[in-house]
């Protein structure tokens, strides 16, 4: 049986599709109907709506929709209207970065040997869960920036271990051969 969260996720995905569809139709209609400035303004508003909706609903599968929507909506226009423009932009940017990075991390983990990937992913999730929200975006970016180093290191130690096993296997086989003759 599907859980309530799955249904919420399906509904959110459908809503995302509808919003994107409406935005595309709107852009097409406006560009054909009115002047270019109005079209640009409309496209900007539509793109912002899609971006915020996408961030909110795409996070719903994991973190609970109400909390994420509330935090994203709280962080964006309210503070900006109150005169804290940079903070509003940064918060929205951080929320998007964290969400995107959290989705990218499992893909990165798949590039490592299985055990190392699982461990790295579990550690990143543990850190991001406990870190303060303003720290999360920085940490997520840092995790993604350092992935080449981690992937290389993980494969290097994996291959070194494998090589050691092969060498020790050959040595013990050699010893067995030596004793049998």
């Amino acid at each position, binding site marked *: 049986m599907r859980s309530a969260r799955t249904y919420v996720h399906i509904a959110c995905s459908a809503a995302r599709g509808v919003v994107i569809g409406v935005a595309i139709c709107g852009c097409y209609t406006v560009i054909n109907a009115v002047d270019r400035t109005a079209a640009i303004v409309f496209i900007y508003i539509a793109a912002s709506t899609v971006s915020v909706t996408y961030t909110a609903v795409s996070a719903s599968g994991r973190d609970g929709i109400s909390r994420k929507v509330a935090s994203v909506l709280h962080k964006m226009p309210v503070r900006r209207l109150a005169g804290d423009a940079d903070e509003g932009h940064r918060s929205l940017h951080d929320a998007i970065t964290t969400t995107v990075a959290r989705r990218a991390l499992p893909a990165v983990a798949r590039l490592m040997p299985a055990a190392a990937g699982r461990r790295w992913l579990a550690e*990143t999730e*543990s850190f991001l869960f406990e870190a303060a929200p303003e720290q999360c975006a920085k*940490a997520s970016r840092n995790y993604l920036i350092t992935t080449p180093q981690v992937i290389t290191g993980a494969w290097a130690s994996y291959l070194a271990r494998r090589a050691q096993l092969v060498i020790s296997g050959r040595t013990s086989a050699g010893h067995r051969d030596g004793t049998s003759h």
Partner: protein
Amino acid sequence: MALRMTVQTLLILQALLRDPGRELYGLELSEETGLLPGTAYPILLRLENEGWVTSRWEDIDPKVEKRPARRYYRFTASGAAEASAACAAAKRPSRSALRRLAQEDGAA
């Protein structure tokens, strides 16, 4: 293979050396050293491969605690002595190196 003693490695070793018996997890290490976790992780892996540091998963039920398990790091029996010798032998980082490190971490 000898361990490369970068400024970041020294920071992590010093954080662990403050109380060699104590176990530290990612967030604590990050707060104590000022390094971001992605920077600290490969260093901890290298230290573990060298046998200086050992790590373990926290033994909890994530559903009960309502948070994922932490990975704890601490020195091995020989690791603390080797690390303090390495820290003593390492050249003290210059101010410009520390400033550059702070700027890099701030930009990241």
